[in-house]
């Protein structure tokens, strides 16, 4: 597709030739994830997470469609039908736990995928569109996960829905009508549950569509790589199949082992006990926390405690929470360094590690009760988060002196093996 030396699809079997003539779908697949897609030969394991995120989406769609077969989207019965699925439906417990933990694993691999992109500069030209579409997927995932969490109609479902839709209530004048419109009532109820169910079923397929665009946009410049140096010739690439299908196969195995350990031996570890209590509009849980993948954003939301003149603190928190995600859309134009990979950017690399730690701290503050000292910690951490992307990155890309880049991908690979793999180096001597 993208490189002139990409292998051409040449079906041998007459049936495949016939299909290819009428509908070149096999050719499309061949060029997208088959031998027809040349990929840099030096990708490390952090490049596995794109395929793993795709696998996670497949797990979610399959188990989700099955859950929907046994689910009743009505506030009177929803909690009971989920319990019935767990108890009476054949392998229902497996489907339900796989779906609940699958959501967590989807976010784990997507976060690793995003932080990979942040470290190796995957968002930079010419791959800005890949990054932007990735962020769209991330936003859709957050919406889907939030609405999915409401469906079991437990205490956290109910109060989560109430708090999150309440964020819109912070918007002046139109806020409350919007909240009422979102919920179809004055508080979460049957109308909210039904629309969330409908959209929760729809959005994953929208995500699948945007993933196709994401891959399409990726295939125009081709995959990035850990050196950040562009592909110069055929010696720099290997065909996706079998080289990266084999590597992704191994990655999928490791992913599934980790997933199975949680799914079979600690299925409720990432969940909240309160969601095993049926929704009760008359009693609020001791403290309301979202699922773990929202904790950092929840901490930013709660970090604003002081009104800014006429802007109330609550509205500031809402604005900041949305800004914390939306600012990522501007990242390709905020980081102007011509060097992509963090490997060759000593200052950038240090700040990347600080950002990683910062997000972890924000996550910790997000799950902690809204009390001191966690609020103070979250204020400092949130301040760093904004400063990192909006102030520090533009500045360091201006003043940083990058390390010398390798001449090509092949040169980098040769240097690595020449230095570290003494045994292989000795082979020609035999």
């Amino acid at each position, binding site marked *: 597709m993208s490189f002139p030396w990409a292998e051409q699809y040449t079906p041998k079997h007459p049936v495949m030739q016939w299909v290819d003539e009428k509908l070149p779908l096999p050719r499309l697949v061949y060029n997208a994830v088959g031998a027809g897609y040349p990929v840099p030969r030096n990708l490390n394991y952090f490049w596995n997470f794109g395929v793993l995120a795709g696998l996670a989406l497949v797990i979610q769609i*399959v188990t989700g469609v*099955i859950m929907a*077969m*046994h689910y009743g989207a009505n506030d009177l019965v929803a909690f009971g039908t989920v319990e*019935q699925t767990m*108890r*009476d*439906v*054949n*392998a*229902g417990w*497996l*489907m339900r736990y796989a779906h609940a933990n699958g959501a967590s694993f989807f976010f784990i691999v997507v976060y690793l995928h995003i932080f990979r992109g942040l470290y190796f500069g995957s968002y930079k030209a010419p791959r800005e569109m890949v990054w932007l579409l990735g962020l769209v997927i991330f936003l859709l995932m957050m919406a889907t996960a939030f609405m999915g969490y409401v469906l079991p109609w437990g205490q956290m479902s109910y109060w989560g829905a109430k708090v999150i839709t309440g964020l819109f209530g912070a918007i002046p004048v139109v806020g409350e009508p919007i909240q009422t419109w979102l919920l179809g009532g004055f508080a979460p109820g049957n109308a909210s549950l039904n629309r969330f169910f409908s959209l929760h079923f729809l959005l994953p397929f929208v995500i699948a569509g945007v993933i196709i665009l994401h891959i399409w946009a990726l295939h125009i410049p081709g995959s990035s790589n850990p050196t950040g140096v562009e592909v110069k010739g055929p010696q720099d690439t290997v065909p996706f199949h079998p080289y990266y299908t084999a590597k992704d*196969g191994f990655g999928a195995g490791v992913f599934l082992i980790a997933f199975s350990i949680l799914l079979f031996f600690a299925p409720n570890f990432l969940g909240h006990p309160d969601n095993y209590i049926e929704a009760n509009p008359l009693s609020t849980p001791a403290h309301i926390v979202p699922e773990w993948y929202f904790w950092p954003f929840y901490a930013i939301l709660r970090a604003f405690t002081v009104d800014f003149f006429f802007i109330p603190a609550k509205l500031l928190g809402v604005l900041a929470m949305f800004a914390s995600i939306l600012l990522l859309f501007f990242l390709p134009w905020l980081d102007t360094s011509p060097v992509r990979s963090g490997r060759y950017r000593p200052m950038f690399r240090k700040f990347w590690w600080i950002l990683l730690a910062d997000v972890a701290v924000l996550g910790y503050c997000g799950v902690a009760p809204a009390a001191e000292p966690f609020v103070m910690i979250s204020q400092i951490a949130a301040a760093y988060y904004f400063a990192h992307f909006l102030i520090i990155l533009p500045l360091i890309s201006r003043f940083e002196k990058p390390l010398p880049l390798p001449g090509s991908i092949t040169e980098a690979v040769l240097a690595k093996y020449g230095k570290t793999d003494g045994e292989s180096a000795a082979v020609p001597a*035999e």
Partner: protein
Amino acid sequence: MASVEQIDGTGPSGEDGVRRRDFINIAAVSFAGVGAVAVVLPLIDQMNPSADVLALASTEVDLSAIQPGQAIKTTFRSQPLFVRQLTPKEIAEADKVDPSSLRDPQTLEERTVDGKKQWLVTMGVCTHLGCVPLGAGEGENRGEFGGYFCPCHGSSYDTAARIRKGPAPKNLEVPKYSFTSDTAILVG
């Protein structure tokens, strides 16, 4: 060189090396295939009836209130079930018919429990296309053979619920049941 690679099994050349490489790739792919099949099994099984549905797979019916000539309509596995106490006249009418002349040859004895010939227990599901025949309720059209009449396509059943006229191919189905006492049956 070849001998070294044969030992570690990863060499790019040499007959044995190549064969072993292929073997590992084939084994890895086959394992993935077996895994996929093992995953599909519960995905299929989840569509089978769940434990709560199976728990209602048998129904007890109290017969004490059914007078001769009367029938009741109840449910068994979410489908209508007809229980009828035949009058001696109805029994005689059923016995009069030569089974070999019927579309689905069966005698009344074969369709009832020994010694309880007056109790006719059948599904209320027309064997044509699954409509519910009339005749179990008071004053309903019983058709020209005095049993049940299906209003959808005009199948008529006699007093032993055997098909006599119309498109239905079989007699009304007699479910498996047994008497738990003189006035109660357990269906299923």
